[in-house]
């Protein structure tokens, strides 16, 4: 089997992984090495695939052979599909050639479990060693820790990679038991904890010894599948918050479940992936990380799921109208961030600009505030947008109208003369 064929099979098997970021690394270029990881704070996208997702890393599996039998996964052992495996040398060659041509920012290496988690991880370590030591590759590497791997191997992998991740996949233990019988909660959380502890240790060592090796300098992330099990948004968001608080994750990724296989325990194959729900979860995730929100503020037991029509910040604002309007000339940073339509950048700009002079409503648009949402929730020098009329009960309608062009359209159906009239 030639490399082209292997690449096709192993990319196809890896594409359901959502994580594809090169952010968080900040390693300057070194003499005699190729590459760096500091192109920008936010990472660098090298392309966007036809589904609109960013392509920044060469995302492939080491092998798609797997001894596990997770029901939701295309690579499970009971699935009849083409199997392939890269040799470490092939993978290193491919990465360095793509990197030199500026196709990619680095490598995202995941794998099915070949023979045992330890054996697979050893293969991955071998590939990364060739890259780092033989080719002197200094770019970004994201490596997957496979649940059940020996801690010594995870440690070795962590010193070669910039970021590591252990995928939780199913947001609840019950889901794990039914759909991924070979994995346990313990097997997933143990390497996660290890990466966290070792990363903290490495930071301490760096304070003492300037040239101490860095363990996963870009931290760790994980992924949750949305829509394969019956877990609510509230459950997922609270889990996310726990992961940020207790495991110090850099990112939690959500992957809308794409039905790849017919199984009694899973949604049927005709079900479309819940893309809007995934989108709302990402929006809420940003609110947790950058806007100072807590999961309990956004959702609760009575409202366990997000409103599909408006974004989570708008929903929160509608439920807390007493907090508004916010006066942009006097409000503090935290209060500004709570206004729908004001983000981190525009809030900072407002803080700077209002030291020069009092702001007027007309100025805000130029600072990047999205006025179609923000105008209902703020005043500038005591005034709102000229001619803006609304009542609290028409607010939701106005906000939905503002966002409708962005939502996926309901597919139009051809009218037919012979259809029975729809019940009114």
């Amino acid at each position, binding site marked *: 089997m030639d490399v082209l064929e292997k690449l096709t099979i192993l990319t196809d098997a890896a594409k359901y992984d959502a994580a594809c970021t090169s952010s968080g690394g900040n390693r300057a270029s070194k003499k005699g090495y190729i590459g760096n990881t500091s192109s920008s704070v936010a990472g660098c996208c090298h*392309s966007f695939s036809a589904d609109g997702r960013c392509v920044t890393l060469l995302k492939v599996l080491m092998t798609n052979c797997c001894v596990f039998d997770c029901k939701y996964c295309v690579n499970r052992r009971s699935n009849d599909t083409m199997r392939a495996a890269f040799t470490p040398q092939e993978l290193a060659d491919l990465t360095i050639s793509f990197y030199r041509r500026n196709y990619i920012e680095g490598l995202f290496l995941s794998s099915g479990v070949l023979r045992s988690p330890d054996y697979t991880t050893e293969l991955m370590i071998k590939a990364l060693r060739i890259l780092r030591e033989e080719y002197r590759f200094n770019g970004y590497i994201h490596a997957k820790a496979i649940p059940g791997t020996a801690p010594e191997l995870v440690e070795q992998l962590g010193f070669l990679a910039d970021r590591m991740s252990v995928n939780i996949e199913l947001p609840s233990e019950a889901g794990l038991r039914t759909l991924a019988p070979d994995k346990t909660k313990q097997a997933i959380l143990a390497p996660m904890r290890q990466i966290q502890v070792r990363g903290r240790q490495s930071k301490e060592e760096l304070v003492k010894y300037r040239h101490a090796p860095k363990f996963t300098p870009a931290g760790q992330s994980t992924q949750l599948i949305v829509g394969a099990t019956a877990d609510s948004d509230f459950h997922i968001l609270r889990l996310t918050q726990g992961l940020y608080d207790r495991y110090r994750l850099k990112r939690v990724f959500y992957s809308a479940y794409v039905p790849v296989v017919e199984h009694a325990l899973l949604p049927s194959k005709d079900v479309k992936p819940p893309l809007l729900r995934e989108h709302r979860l990402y929006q809420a995730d940003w609110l947790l990380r950058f806007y100072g929100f807590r999961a309990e503020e956004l959702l609760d037991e009575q409202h366990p799921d997000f409103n599909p029509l408006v974004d989570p910040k708008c929903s929160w604002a509608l439920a807390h109208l007493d907090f508004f309007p916010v006066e942009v000339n006097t409000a503090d940073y935290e209060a500004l961030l709570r206004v729908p339509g004001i983000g981190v950048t525009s809030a900072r700009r407002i803080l700077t600009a209002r030291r020069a002079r009092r702001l007027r409503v007309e100025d805000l648009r130029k600072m990047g505030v999205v006025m179609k949402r923000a105008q209902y929730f703020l005043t500038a020098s005591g005034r709102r947008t000229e001619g803006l009329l609304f009542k609290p009960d028409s607010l939701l309608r106005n906000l939905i109208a503002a966002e409708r062009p962005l939502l996926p359209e309901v597919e139009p159906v051809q009218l037919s003369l012979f259809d029975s009239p729809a019940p009114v």
Partner: protein
Amino acid sequence: MTEMVYYYDGSFEGFLCCIFDSYANKEVLTAIYRDEDLVPTLFATRSIPTDREHANRVYRKIVKCSPYTADLLRKCFLTCLPDKELYLYRLVVKLLREGPGFLRNFSDETLYPVLRAVRLLNGEAHLLKGFVRFSDLGGVLGGEIEPKNRVLPLLRSHFCARYQGEKFFLYDRTHREALFYANGKAVIQPLEHFQMAPPDEAEAHYRLLWKRFYDTIAIKERYNPKCRQTNMPKRYWNTMTEFQDETYFRVQSSPAGVEAPGAPAGIPAPGTPQGPGPSAPGSGI
């Protein structure tokens, strides 16, 4: 104070000299044009010679008032903003008259157009850091871009750091200039004509691998071309490997794209220029 239209040679120093002369002659500028954009006009005009000493004096003064503005000036001069010279001139005049306080107000009518243009420039440069595609032409990396703004000065440090052990060049089709880098030295030089050399066997193979990777990584159930186009506008596609037609992936022995009879793939037919052709990096350094 009389109103005047100034002409200058198109260089940054020349532009700074316009500012110098407008103060020296006590004239208010209503337009600043480059010499090549010369149009007959009813207004009084003056052609400004470039004087390095004058330019330095203006620049030092601006840096003293506000280093931020000096940076803004240099960057905005690279943008494709129409009448950027006039906007910048007004910005400098306001800075010298009022001091740097107004620079905090992002919605200031003199500052805002400049800020916006620089934001667009930075955005384009950031996107191009990812969207540039190099080809390996016999050990030398070569790439082409078609940006709206002159982004090469912004891309220089990024690519020089990333490929510091390599030799590469990057050609800007819009502004007809190229960035050359070899042995730790980089220059940006005007280059009127450039034709990319055809790929050899290894290069064509990696192009094909990348195209296959790109096509495979998309999940078809999530197909969303609008989202892709928002993130990656179509004007960048022209120079990206994954959007080229079949001939781009074929080993070609002549630039015309026709395989010369007799010559095996990978070996150039007689008469074909070797390597990157007339624009080999090193020649400009």
